[in-house]
C-alpha cells in the first residue's frame, strides 16, 4: 500500500519504512516465530503504514531455492525448511503418533468433504466412527468443529484446521491433491441412496460455499 517514503518533508511524522526495510522486518518476525503469522499480525508489529503483503512477496522470492522457504499456510505465513533437506534433520524429527487406518481415512474424508458430519463419514466408510478416532484428530488439532449443519438434528460438522494445512504443507484446503478431479468425477457429492428423499436441498451448493469461505470463518 505504501510507496517509498516522501523525502521532501511533506510526509507524515511516522513514515512507513522503505520496502527493503519492511522486508527485513517481516523476515525477522517470521524467523522468530515457530508458528505461522498472519499479515494482520505482521502489520500490527510493523511501523504504521507498512505493507506486509508486499514485503512477504519480496521475501518469498528472495528465499526461492534456499535451505528455508517462505510458505503460506491458510491466511498466515511461516518459514519452513526445504523438504529436500529433511534427511539432515533426524535430530529434529518428532516421533509422530502412528495414526490408525480409521483415523487417516477419517481425516481424509473431513479434508475432502468438509464441512462433514459424523454421519457422512460413516456413510462413506461404511462403518461407524469410534469416538476415539474423532477425539484423536481433534486433540492433534488437525480437525475442529465447524458450523452446525442446517438439517434436522442440526448435526455438528468437522473441518480441517490451519495446523492441518501447516503439517501437510498446504496453502489452503483447496490445494488438496486431486481435489478437482474428485469433484469432477462426482465423488465428493453426498448422493443419497436411491429411493431416499434427500435431507435438505442444495447439498452441493452448500458444500462449495462452505469450502470457499472456510478459513475466513473466524
Amino acid at each position: 500500500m505504501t510507496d517509498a517514503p516522501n523525502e521532501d518533508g511533506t510526509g507524515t511524522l511516522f513514515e512507513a519504512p522503505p520496502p527493503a526495510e519492511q522486508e527485513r522486518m517481516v523476515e525477522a518476525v517470521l524467523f522468530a516465530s515457530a508458528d505461522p503469522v498472519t499479515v494482520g499480525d505482521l502489520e500490527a508489529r510493523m511501523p504504521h503504514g507498512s505493507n506486509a503483503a508486499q514485503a512477504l512477496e519480496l521475501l518469498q522470492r528472495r528465499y526461492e531455492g534456499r535451505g528455508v522457504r517462505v510458505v503460506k499456510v491458510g491466511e498466515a505465513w511461516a518459514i519452513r525448511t526445504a523438504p529436500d533437506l529433511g534427511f539432515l534433520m533426524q535430530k529434529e524429527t518428532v516421533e509422530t503418533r502412528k495414526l490408525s487406518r480409521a483415523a487417516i481415512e477419517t481425516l481424509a474424508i473431513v479434508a475432502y468433504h468438509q464441512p462433514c458430519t459424523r454421519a457422512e463419514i460413516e456413510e462413506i466408510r461404511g462403518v461407524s466412527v469410534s469416538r476415539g478416532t474423532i477425539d484423536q484428530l481433534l486433540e492433534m488439532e488437525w480437525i475442529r468443529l465447524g458450523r452446525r449443519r442446517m438439517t434436522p438434528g442440526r448435526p455438528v460438522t468437522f473441518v480441517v484446521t490451519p495446523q492441518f494445512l501447516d503439517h501437510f504443507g498446504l496453502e489452503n484446503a483447496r490445494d488438496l491433491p486431486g481435489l478437482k478431479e474428485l469433484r469432477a468425477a462426482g465423488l465428493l457429492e453426498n448422493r443419497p441412496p436411491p429411493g431416499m428423499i434427500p435431507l435438505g436441498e442444495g447439498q452441493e451448493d452448500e458444500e462449495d460455499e462452505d469450502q470457499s469461505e472456510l478459513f475466513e470463518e473466524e
Partner: protein
Amino acid sequence: MNDNLFSEDPVSVADRLAAEALIVDVDGFEGPLDVLLTLSRTQKVDLRKISVLALAQQYLTFVEKARALRIELAADYLVMAAWLAFLKSRLLLPPDPDDEGPSGEELAAHLAFQLERLQAMRDSAARLMARDQLGRDFFRRGQGEDIRRVRTVTYSATLLDLMQGYARIRTRDEFRPFVMDRDAVFTMEQALERMRPLIGFAGTWTDMETYLPDGWDADPVRRRSATAATFAASLELVKEGHMEIKQSETFAPIQLRKRTETRD
C-alpha cells in the same frame, strides 16, 4: 444377459479361495463395505464397470462360507447380505411396473458409487500421508525467539506481591477472630507427635484416654477432637508396629500398650 452371467457361476475357484482368506481375516475388515471393496478387486476391472451382480454373489458366498465355518459375523455383515440378496433378485427379475421403489439398476449404481467413493478416499488418504510432513520432512523454527503467539496470557507477579501476600496471610492469622475455632481441633499429626515419645513407657495396657493432651478434656468439642485424633494416631502406630491396641467389648475403654520385641 443376467441369466448368462449367473449360470456361468461367477464364483470361480480363485474367488472361493479369496473368500476363504477373507473370512480368516474378517477381523481386519472395517465392515461390509470394506469387504465388498476387497472382493471387487478380484474382478480386475475399473470400479465404474464393476459387475454388481457378480459382487453380490461373491459377498453372499463369503457370508455362507463364514456360516459353514461357524464364524460369527457382526450383524451389519448379515444386514448387507440380506440387502445384496434383495438386490440380486431385483437385478435378475424383470422389473415390476407396479413397483414404486428404485430399480435394481439404480441400487446397483449407488453401491458402485459408494465403492468408488470409498476407494477414492482411501487413495486420497494415502496421497495425503505421502506428502511432505511438518516435523518429518520439513521443519519449523527450532528455537522460537521472544516472540510468542498473539494473545498468549502470561501471569506475572513481583517479589513484592509475593512478600505482601505472605505478610497478609500472616497478619490475618494473628487477627483472625476464628483462630479460636482452630483451637478446638486437635490434628492427627499433633496426636502422633504427642504419642510417639509416650508409648515407649507404656509397658502395660493403658487406657487411651490417658494419652489425651492436657486441657482437652473439659470442653466436649475439644475432647471429641482430641479423642478422634488420638484414636487415629493409635491405629497408625499400631500399623507401624510400635503399639498394640485392644477393646474388650463394645464401648469398653480402648487400651494401648507398647509392642514388645519378644512378641511372636
